[in-house]
């Protein structure tokens, strides 16, 4: 029964949606652009090498940073919207 309660809880659903979107981006920049899709990006030159190398060594770190701050900002907003923020 309470499994149902959770699934119907719009705050938790919104959170799960946000987490899913963020983790998809997280995986695309690191495992995708940095490793698996690197051969596809090899045509795009960046400073003596290709875009995949840049993502593997710098780009993904920068995206991770943006993701965490974006998530914190959105979640703190959701906390207020659904009235579950800390007193």
């Amino acid at each position, binding site marked *: 029964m309470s499994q149902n309660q959770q699934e119907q809880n719009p705050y938790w659903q919104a959170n799960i949606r946000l987490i899913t979107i963020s983790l998809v981006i997280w995986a695309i920049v690191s*495992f995708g652009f940095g*490793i698996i899709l690197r051969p596809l990006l090899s045509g795009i030159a960046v400073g003596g*090498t290709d875009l995949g190398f840049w993502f593997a060594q*710098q780009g993904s770190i920068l995206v991770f940073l943006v993701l965490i701050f974006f998530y*914190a900002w959105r979640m703190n907003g959701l906390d207020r919207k659904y009235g579950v923020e*800390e007193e």
Partner: protein
Amino acid sequence: MDQFTLNLLFVGGSFALYIGIAIWARAGSTSEFYAAGRGVHPVTNGMATAADWMSAASFISMAGLIAFTGYDNSSFLMGWTGGYVLLALLLAPYLRKFGKFTVSEFIGDRFYSPTARLVAVICLLIASITYVIGQMQGVGIAFGRFLEIDATTGLLIGSCVVFAYAVFGGMKGVTYTQVAQYCVLITAYTIPAVFISLQLTGNPIPALGLFGEHTSSGEPLLAKLDQIVRDLGFAEYTAAHGSTINMVLFTLSLMIGTAGLPHVIMRFFTVPRVSDARWSAGWTLVFIALLYLTAPAVGAMARLNISELMWPNGTDGAAVSVEQIENDPQYAWMATWQKTGLLDWEDKNGDGMIQYYNDANADLQAKAAENGWQGNELTNFNRDILVLANPEIASLPGWVIGLVAAGGLAAALSTAAGLLLAISSAVSHDLLKGQLTPNMSEKSELLAARISMAAAIVVAVLLGLNPPGFAAQTVALAFGLAAASIFPALMMGIFSTRINNTGAVAGMLAGLVVTLLYIFLHKGWFFIPDTNMFTDADPLLGPIKSTSFGAIGAAVNFAVAYFVSGATKETPQEIVELVESVRVPRGAGAAAAGH
């Protein structure tokens, strides 16, 4: 002033600073010892967590591993930063809301089982001790260099310093000390990198210099580096050589492991509010990224410098002469590092020159036969010395060398102290007070905490004498273990109400056992050399090396927990309510009371 005095001055000065802070902020109560009274600002906490997190592996070892392998070791960069995304999104705010001191307390309460808590403690201890081995390696190398002794003696001296240092402060002392250590280590890492980047590319920001132009040749830096290492018969720097599957699994293991390491998670118990736990993970990554964006530049530039030093007349000209190595001040670092036993060369063909090349490469073997070379003559170059030797290799002023020695020690010490704290709280708080002797007084709990620190150091030193790999590789094994055991239990505990006590215990044990087995099969039983049955060059399961197995261990953990929970009784209603309360920030203050 000579280099030795200068090193002593920098290292001594920074130590005096840390000890001063530790005394000023001494822990009085158990609550302060473990969690600093929960009064730490997110930015301060982020900085301290970054120092805690960036260990000998990040500071001393990582750039060296990248330098000698190139692109394939990008896993360290992505893995050790990407884990913070998992931590911030999946764990930190909820564990802060739960509001207890330790990770195993959460597991014990959420899975309503003292057995689950015990299993969690065992997982934590195994992962943390493996991690401390890697730190002690780094401590040994740093002490070896700056006292100009061999690395083993350095390790023994270093362990005494780590012990004295960790035993006197708890989390509160450690938090403020770690802020100071962060400042020392980031300055020490950045300054030489800026100098070297200016020398090679004219760009003062190393991260941009890496993708910039090599001033003396007019080519892009990475293209120049690729060409030089190719000429010497080594694998091209920017190209992928290893297996893609292994690289994905290795990166994933490091990421999951980051989010499962007790000493990192513990930091998020110390922020005042749930929303601060979210910000705090972001701030931590900001401070970590400052080093991680510089590290690949340090690696590539050092590799270029070393290659050019060994071949001062270009790769087609004559190699560096033994006489030059012995007399030219530019090569003085080689003699200094030879004393640590981590760098060595030998004029095998007696031509008075030291040829550095890949003697396993067919083209270079042909060239060697033509020129009368008898194998690579730079016989030993331990990857772990690269960062510490880097300012000397680039002929930077003496004070930079002293600063880097102090920075390396700061990195190793801060993490060793954080880990020892996690180990001691696991033993005294979770094992003794939580399970065996619940009526223990605060005073004897603190005593037990300190005794367990001492025991952990002794074990780490014994195993650190014959480490299973370079510092960052040893540390990677610890991450695999944390990934396979702790992270899945924490995540399922928050995101699923269906996983019950039996499922969690079975999952953690399955994940830990398969990962530990895989590691021992490849690295030797209990890391004792020559007891391994497979090697990472030819692993048991296709391309999957022992350092990458953590991700598979985690998958085993999730699967076992899911199926066992499905076959056993549902979680009781009060636990479902506990999970639901952990999911919302409201009411966090009230939950903060101790055990």
